[in-house]
């Protein structure tokens, strides 16, 4: 196989690694789990057929693989238990009684987003953090664009409600 193509492929994967990690972390919550998942996704990309490696939209494709892998992981009991433990830890750290300093604010938002249902969480990650257009998100999640918009609107409204809630309690 030509070395140039091989190198190109390695570069491509290298560039995608952080993105894959962020998306898997959003779904799996635990950093360790996300790091393992990222490796698995990269192995899956590596095992692609020579022809498939030239897929123009390698980025969207890797996101789809990452999403599917994480959803499978989440179905298994083990992953559920781990994320539960992690959630409890963050809950303890961000007691609403405390004034929200900078670090607490970050953790509060993080928890707020991670408490959303998986699909809404994924849409927020892909839109607000990875900044993808709707057609790309639709392709990654394998749903119509309209559905992506529904998830996004639902997620953002929930986020707004939470922000209004802490304001009412005189915090923030």
């Amino acid at each position: 196989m030509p070395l140039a193509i091989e190198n190109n492929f390695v570069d491509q994967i290298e560039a995608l690694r952080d993105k894959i990690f962020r998306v898997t972390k959003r779904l799996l919550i635990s950093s360790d789990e996300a790091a393992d998942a990222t490796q698995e996704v990269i192995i899956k990309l590596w095992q692609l057929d020579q022809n498939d490696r030239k897929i123009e939209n390698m980025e969207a494709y890797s996101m789809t693989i990452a999403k599917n892998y994480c959803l499978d992981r989440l179905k298994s009991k083990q992953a559920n238990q781990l994320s539960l433990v992690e959630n409890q830890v963050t809950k303890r750290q961000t007691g609403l009684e405390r004034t929200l300093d900078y670090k607490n604010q970050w953790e509060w938002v993080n928890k707020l987003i991670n408490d959303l249902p998986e699909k809404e969480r994924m849409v927020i990650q892909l839109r607000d953090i990875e900044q993808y257009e709707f057609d790309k998100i639709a392709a990654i999640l394998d749903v119509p664009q309209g559905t992506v918009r529904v998830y996004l609107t639902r997620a953002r409204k929930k986020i707004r409600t939470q922000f209004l809630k802490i304001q009412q309690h005189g915090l923030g």
Partner: protein
Amino acid sequence: MDWDKIHLLMDRYFEGETTLEEEASLRRLFNSAAEIPEDLKKYQPLFTYFEQSQHTVFPTTKKPFSKQFIPWIAVAASVLIIFAIPFKSQQQTPDEQQLQQAYEELRSNMNVMSTYLNKGKKQFAYLEVWNQTTQKFIK
């Protein structure tokens, strides 16, 4: 700054109606040093969170192999040095000339061996031709 416009933009943002460009401008605004009115300021953590989360990278600090073995590599190296020093000084005692002679002898032997090896290798060339011709028939 036209804050009425920003308010409208925020409403559209929470309805999921903003474009990527509009969302980028909101992120820039909330992450800038601009004085943000009180009623909008509460949303600032959301956009600083988005901005920071873009820069999360794959954790590469986790290198269990190299970190775990670095002290042992040092130990192995020092043990090697301790044993090598007396060994080396022993080797220097035999007559240099004798060593040279042994080396020359070895060299000539190797030369003879390599010519035989090369002769043998030439025979393989015929095998290659045989392979090619048989493949024609087998296919």
